[in-house]
């Protein structure tokens, strides 16, 4: 269970951490109830400000993906706890699709890319 951080990535570090954890949850590598390292451990390992990791965890908590229990750490939440509207869930997909169109990819190409990625995520989550 490794989290990758890339300095060449345009996303801020907190976003990379949050996205990385989301990806691991989607792929089923972080299952419901799995403990996450404390903010201090992750911040020290990465050598960043405590607030950077705290912000990432807060974002995950707001999205209902993790539960922060004060004193006993953070755990991956149950899938049923994700109470987000369809519109809210579709927002990042729309952003990604917009970026792909602006990058000059044709709709058929985008569709095949999405299908491939979905198969990949689906396989790993089984």
């Amino acid at each position, binding site marked *: 269970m490794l*989290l990758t*951080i890339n300095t060449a990535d345009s996303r801020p570090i907190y976003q990379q951490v949050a996205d990385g954890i989301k990806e691991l949850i989607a792929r089923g590598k972080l299952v419901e109830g799995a403990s996450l390292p404390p903010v201090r451990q992750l911040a020290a390992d990465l050598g960043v400000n405590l607030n950077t990791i705290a912000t990432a965890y807060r974002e995950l908590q707001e999205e209902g993906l993790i539960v922060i229990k004060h004193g006993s750490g953070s755990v991956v939440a149950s899938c049923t706890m994700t109470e987000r509207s369809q519109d809210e869930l579709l927002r990042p997909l729309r952003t990604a699709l917009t970026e792909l169109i602006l990058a000059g990819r044709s709709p058929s190409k985008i569709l095949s890319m999405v299908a491939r990625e979905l198969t990949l995520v689906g396989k790993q989550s089984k």
Partner: protein
Amino acid sequence: MHTNQYAIIFYIFFWVVRINGCVRRGRQPLLRGPGWFFNVAVQPDFYTGAGRTILHRYWMRMFIPFAVDVPLAIAIFLSGHLLLLNWLILGACALIHINHSFSVDLAERQARPLAVPEAEQPVASIVLSLKPRRLRDYTNRKVEWALALSSLVALACLVRYYFAAPEHHNLRLVFGVPAFFLYLQAGMLFVKRVVVAWRTPVPQVQAEEHMEAREETRKYYLRTCDWCRAAAAAGILFWPIAISTPPTGFNRVFGIWFAAWMMIAVVATIWVEIRRKQLVKLALRARPVKLPDFLHQSEIARWPVCYQPSAPMLLLKGARGYSLNLANTLTHLGAAYLAGLIALFALLPKGP
């Protein structure tokens, strides 16, 4: 044999181990081959040019602890208080390790301007383990039970011994020594906590090798702490026997205990040497890289101590070497521990 003679034997053993350590540290800069100086990839002419001086200075710094403890040892021998040699050994061990850490860091910093430029570029991708690291994950329950039970048995014997005739026994003499050893054990637990918190960022390239080397080193340090705790527990166990033995039989009992203790020390030393060699093999498999410095530690940690509440690390790697973060909880715990140790020394009996 007199207790002073045992102290001399132990001091000689310390020197044998120490010379071996000096040889090992002397070879350390060249372990990766001629293209490397410690973990810095250097240019081919490094050892014929300026690097030669850096290497010689590193070797010279290895003798700083000798300059401190040899005069002290001479003073102890001249004064005749040979039991103080045990304290000298403890102090020298700490000094040797601190001096070595700072010396390696200084040598690497001096070598960096002469390094291969490409190797000095921080890696773009790093990986982190999402596995929580807690002290209990690195704890052997059987060892903990054995240590706790042995201490409890010894303390129960001491309580029984003291309350059999409280008017004839000195409370501080009966419980002072076990209290000291228990405090040492607590100190080792604190060191274990620091080792568990030791950060583990690794590059994406060869991540597995780096991770394995780091984890094995962590486990080695933790086990070394457990050896020290076992030695402290042996001290607690011995005390009720020593204190209840009549003066005529004390030397014999002490001799048996010392022989057992020396055997443990020899076995532990052999184990340390074997493990060190295994760890070197593991470390050599992973190519050292420079990791990105997100916190700009060289700018925020300019002095040996700093106050950075937002930095989660105990030690920051500043421009002039390591800097102790006074805002870290572990620093507070360490300071409280040292204060408690001083208070304990003040309470301990000064003589039989």
